[in-house]
């Protein structure tokens, strides 16, 4: 439920970010020091950090280190990964799927976020609710729902045939269509909330100014609105991309063998073959790709903020 978790955290964080934007946050004081000396509140961090180190960082570190130590010390696991085309194929699949899902999410998410920001009060409330509902619902439940919706004799095919759009029911399940359908559905909120937060920050007078200065709506949008919302867009897109990389439930239930993704491979390596070394190496690659994406985001959005 990895995606489930990220999505919820970003939900919470962005929902509160939205609140920060709406309420006027108190101006930052040049920060104070009640005690002047080392703050005793550092002790409050101890239990959480201890748990994090003992039950997360430590175990993950051990898993990753097995890439170099299991079954024997060396780079053998990486040589294996390189030589077995199947593994690289899965890594490539994973990145491709993430790279397809991300722009789809952005294209659907942008108008929705726009309506959620600039629509009437009622529309805004409804949209926020509608986007939050799946956010709070178990990924498993939603993926299961998609299986029913997409099956050959399912409601979607019945509708398509009924409307005469297709003579035969379409194969929507256990292939790339099914996987993307489920993935985009799960990921949409990831891109909608950061975009919404960014759009709230755009002063509406900027667009008015652009229009009075002679830019047509399309140009005003491209030259003013889009650049101003770009940090939110990039944040959302990166979130979508890296959470897609870690997908397990969705490809397992909606995709076919050709859509096997890296998380499934890691699970197989451990549960089926006990290849902890390969599993560690794959985990390391997965983390590396995610890390690079986050770094890129940091650089671009960071630079953007400086430039403004």
């Amino acid at each position, binding site marked *: 439920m990895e995606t489930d978790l990220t999505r919820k955290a970003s939900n919470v964080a962005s929902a509160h970010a939205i609140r920060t934007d709406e309420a006027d946050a108190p101006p930052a004081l040049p920060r104070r020091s009640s005690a002047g000396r080392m703050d005793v509140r550092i002790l409050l961090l101890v239990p959480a950090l201890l748990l994090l180190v003992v039950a997360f960082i430590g175990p993950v570190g051990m898993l990753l280190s097995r890439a170099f130590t299991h079954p024997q010390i060396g780079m053998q696991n990486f040589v294996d990964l390189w030589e*077995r*085309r*199947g*593994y690289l*194929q*899965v890594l490539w699949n994973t990145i491709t799927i993430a790279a397809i899902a991300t722009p789809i999410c952005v294209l659907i998410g942008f108008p929705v976020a726009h309506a959620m920001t600039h629509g009437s009060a009622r529309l805004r409330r409804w949209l926020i609710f509608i986007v939050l509902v799946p956010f709070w619902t178990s990924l498993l439940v939603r993926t299961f729902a998609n299986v029913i919706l997409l*099956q*050959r*004799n*399912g409601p979607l095919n019945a509708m398509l045939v009924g409307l005469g759009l297709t003579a035969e*029911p379409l*194969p929507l*399940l*256990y292939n790339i269509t099914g996987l993307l359908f489920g993935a985009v559905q799960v990921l949409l909120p990831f891109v909608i909330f950061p975009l919404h937060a960014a759009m709230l920050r755009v002063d509406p007078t900027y667009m008015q100014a652009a229009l009075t200065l002679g830019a047509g709506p399309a140009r005003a949008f491209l030259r003013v609105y889009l650049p101003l919302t770009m940090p939110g867009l990039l944040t959302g897109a990166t979130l979508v991309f890296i959470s897609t990389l870690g997908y397990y439930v969705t490809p397992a239930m909606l995709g*076919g*063998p050709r859509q*096997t993704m890296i998380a499934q*491979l890691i699970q*197989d390596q451990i*549960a*089926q*073959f*006990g290849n902890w070394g390969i599993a560690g190496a794959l985990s390391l690659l997965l983390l590396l790709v995610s890390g690079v994406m986050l770094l890129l985001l940091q650089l671009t959005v960071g630079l953007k903020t400086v430039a403004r």
Partner: protein
Amino acid sequence: MTDASYPRLTRRDILGASLGLGGAVAFGGQKAFGADDLKGKTVVFASWGGAYQDAQKVSYCDPFAQITGAHVVQDGPMNAAKFRAMIEGGAPDWDVADVTIDFLYAGIGDRLFEKIDRTIVDTSRVDTRFVNDYGIGCIVWSYNLGYSTKAFAGREVPKTWADVFDLKRFPGKRTLGDNVVATMEVALMADGVPPEQLYPLDVERALRKLDTIKSQTIFWSTNSQSQQLFVDGEVNLGLVLNGRAYDAAKKGAPIAISWEQNIQSVDYLVVPRGSRNAAAAMRLIEVMTLPDNQAKLANLIAYAPTNPAAFGAVDPQIAPWLSTQPDNIKRGFVINAEYWRDNLKRLQERWAAWKLT
């Protein structure tokens, strides 16, 4: 390993079993254990899920719970890797597991099972060919070609494995198990290899044959999924187990099976080594051997009994679905469990790699 510990299963053996010739016919019911003597104990029973496990629950576990007072927890689906990992971990979570014959053979070599306690299990009830020092056979079953009666209504229906690979005559999605076992045999037979020349398997040839239908194939990972695919009309034909096809048909799904080139096999109940409830586990196996219980299971899901005395109580309407039916035996062959014992791990890895390409 001597041949004695791995009795080679033959077609004649299965035929014999169905006719009640194979072993001593058991009678006398259960041994006198005190009722409720296992009250408070929990026994974990692992099997293959879905309709089969439901039937096992009703036929074995419920009577067992009633007699002994023990509580049975169902788990599954059975997974060889998980089984091994449990034994390596020292304290297996499962107490009784339903395994296929190839895994029984492999597991004996790897010391995965507790020895059957013959003071608890009356092995004389069961056809001797299905009695092993480490497991007792519970069902006899087969892999079959299943097809949708709706998709092929009023048309030629598929009969042989070659038909499954014939995308022109039999269009539409097909299904095979996401499992190297049996899929290799099916592909080779479709490619023209006669059953008696299958082993040792020409794996690369089989995979090349499979490449021809790969894009049109959905691979089921559990037997229940294979049923669901037919129920949903997601596929038109493919590989199913005879009992699963029966169950789907019984529940109203438009499915029929062909008995041509069926691949026969046996499931055993075993006790994982180090089980914390080994004695209770043996009692559960003992309850399984009772003819009434075996007949009940056969009536629910059309898997044939291993206790010859059970056949008497099997509904005659079920008979055509049983793999032990003489006609069905004639058209099929028995899977080579020794071959799979020796090659399973290697072929599984090859299979996993093929799937990804």
